[in-house]
C-alpha cells in the first residue's frame, strides 16, 4: 500500500496494518491456545517450574509480584532480561513479561530475547502517561489491561492481540476485577440490543473506534481473547471470572503469596476448566491452606493501579 496513495479506511476484518511476518491471526492464535487456562506470575525459575507442574498454560516473568510492588513502593520497571531468560529456559510453556505503559524500548528488548507475549501493564510505573505503545510495530503479540469496553477497544486498535480486565493487582481482592468484567460484558449486552444508527454516538461516548465497536456488536463479544486479572486469590474467584464470561484467568500474587503455592496453583487450574461444576469446585477448594492476605479497597491510602492509564 505504501506509495500508491491508496488508504483503506477499515480494511478487511476491521483490524489492519500488521506486518507481513507476523499477521494478526498468528498473534491472536497464541492467545486462542491459552483459552481456558491460567497464567501465573513467577519471580524465578523454581516458581516457574511449580506453575508448569500445576498446569499453568503460561507464566509471567517478573522481578516482584504486584503485592510486593505495592508493599515496597518505588518505581517498578521491566525485569532483568537475564531473569526472564532463566525462566524461559526452565519451562516449555509460553513465557510472558511486563513492559511499562508507553515504554516501547522495553518492549523491543523483550522482543529481542524472544519472549512469547508482552504485557503492557499498569502494575509497573508508567513511562508515558498519554500514549500507549504502538503495538502494530512489533512481531510479538501484546496483552493490555482495561476497565471498560471503550478502553479495551482502544487497546485493540493500538494492536493488542489479547485483553485482560485490570482488576486491582496485588490486593487479593476480587471486587475491582468483577466491576471491570461486568462493565465490559454489560456494555457488550447493551451494544447487542442497540439499533445500528445509535452505534455512532455510542462509539463516541465510550471513546472507541467505530469499526471495532460495530464488530463487537456483531460478534457479541470482544474481537480478541479476553482474560480476567487483578485480585484472583482462590479457585472460586477464578471460576467466578469464567462464569462471568472470561476466556481465562491471570493469577498474580494469589499463588505464590499463599500458604501452599503448588496446591493452590493446581486447584485454580482445575477451577478454570471445571468452572461451571460446583461439585468439582467444592472438592478442589478443600484444604488449600492460607490464602494471600487481602487488602481492603475502601482504604483511600491504597493506590489504584487501574486508574493509572486510560
Amino acid at each position, binding site marked *: 500500500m505504501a506509495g500508491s496513495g491508496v488508504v483503506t479506511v477499515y480494511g478487511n476484518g476491521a483490524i489492519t496494518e500488521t506486518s507481513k511476518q507476523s499477521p494478526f491471526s498468528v498473534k491472536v492464535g*497464541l492467545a486462542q491456545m491459552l483459552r*481456558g487456562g491460567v497464567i501465573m506470575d513467577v519471580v524465578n525459575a523454581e516458581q516457574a517450574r511449580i506453575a508448569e507442574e500445576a498446569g499453568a498454560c503460561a507464566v509471567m516473568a517478573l522481578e516482584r509480584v504486584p503485592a510486593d510492588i505495592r508493599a515496597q513502593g518505588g518505581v517498578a520497571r521491566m525485569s532483568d532480561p537475564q531473569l526472564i531468560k532463566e525462566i524461559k529456559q526452565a*519451562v*516449555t510453556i509460553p513465557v510472558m513479561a511486563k513492559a511499562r505503559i508507553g515504554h516501547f524500548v522495553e518492549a523491543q528488548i523483550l522482543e529481542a530475547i524472544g*519472549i512469547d507475549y508482552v504485557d503492557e501493564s499498569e502494575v509497573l510505573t508508567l513511562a508515558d502517561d498519554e500514549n500507549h505503545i504502538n503495538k502494530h510495530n512489533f512481531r510479538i503479540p501484546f496483552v493490555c489491561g482495561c476497565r471498560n469496553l471503550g478502553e479495551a477497544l482502544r487497546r485493540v486498535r493500538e494492536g493488542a492481540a489479547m485483553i485482560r480486565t485490570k482488576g486491582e493487582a496485588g490486593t487479593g481482592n476480587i471486587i475491582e476485577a468483577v466491576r471491570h468484567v461486568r462493565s465490559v460484558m454489560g456494555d457488550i449486552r447493551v451494544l447487542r440490543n442497540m439499533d445500528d444508527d445509535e452505534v455512532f454516538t455510542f462509539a463516541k461516548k465510550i471513546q472507541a473506534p467505530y469499526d471495532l465497536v460495530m464488530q463487537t456488536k456483531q460478534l457479541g*463479544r470482544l474481537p480478541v*481473547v479476553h482474560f480476567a486479572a487483578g485480585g484472583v486469590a482462590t479457585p472460586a474467584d477464578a471460576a467466578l471470572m469464567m462464569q462471568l464470561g472470561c476466556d481465562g484467568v491471570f493469577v498474580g500474587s494469589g499463588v505464590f503469596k499463599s500458604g501452599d503455592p503448588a496446591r493452590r496453583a493446581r486447584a485454580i487450574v482445575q477451577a478454570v*476448566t471445571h468452572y461451571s461444576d460446583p461439585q468439582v469446585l467444592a472438592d478442589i477448594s478443600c484444604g488449600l491452606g492460607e490464602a494471600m492476605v487481602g487488602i481492603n479497597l475502601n482504604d483511600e491510602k491504597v493506590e489504584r493501579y487501574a486508574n493509572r492509564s486510560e
Partner: protein
Amino acid sequence: MAVGVLALQGSFNEHIAALKRVGVKGVQIRKPEQLQSVSALIIPGGESTTMAKLAEYHNLFPALREFVKMGKPVWGTCAGLIFLAEKAIGQKTGGQELIGGLDCTVHRNFFGSQIQSFEAEIPIPEIAAKEGGPPSFRGVFIRAPGILEVGPEVQVLADVPAPSTVGSLEDNAGPEKKVIVAVRQGNLLATAFHPELTADTRWHSYFLKMVNETSEEASSSTSLSSEELSSSDPSKYDLPIFQQ
C-alpha cells in the same frame, strides 16, 4: 452424529464453531464418562502440558487410550498431535503423559517460540483430492510441533520446509529439509497446524468422512440419543477468524 471435543483447555470453542459450520454438533468432553456419548473425538490445540495435567487430575488417560484402542476416529491438532504421538521429545523436565497410538516421533515446539510462529500456504494433495477446493491450505502454526519420524503404517498428508529455510523461499530446499506437519494412521488424524483457526473447513469435513466410514463398518453401534443431554451449555459467541 455427535463429535466430542476435549474441553480441558485450549481452542475447543474454535473447533466446536468449525464443526457447527459443517453442520455437526460438537460436545465438550471434560470427564471420562462423557466419552461414552460420542463416536469420535477431537483433541484441540492448547498447551499440551496443561492439558496433560488436567487429564491426569481427572483420570482421563485410561478412558482416552481405550477410546483410541477401540478404533474410534480421533483427530489431534497441535497439542492434540503431541497427545496422540507414541514418542515426543523436547518435553518439560520430567516429561508428560501421552495417549499414544500414532506411530511417530514428535518434536514439541519444533518451530520455536511465538516469534517464530507463522502462517504458510501448504500443499495438501490428499485433502484437495477428497474434498475439492484449492490445492493448498492456509496453515496457522503457533509454537507448533513437528513430526520427525513416522512408522510404515502412517500416511503423510502434508509437509513444510524446515525452519532454517522458512522465510527464504528463493532457496530451493531439497526434499530432506522438509518436516511433516499432517499425518493419518487408520482412524487417527493429526495436524501440527490449526485448521480450527481458519475459515476453510476441509480438514473438518475430511475428519467427518472418517467418522462416517467407521460408523458404517461398526453398524449402528453408536448411540446418538445423548445429544440433548449435553446441550445445556448456553450458546457462546466465538472469536472472528482473522485473515490477512
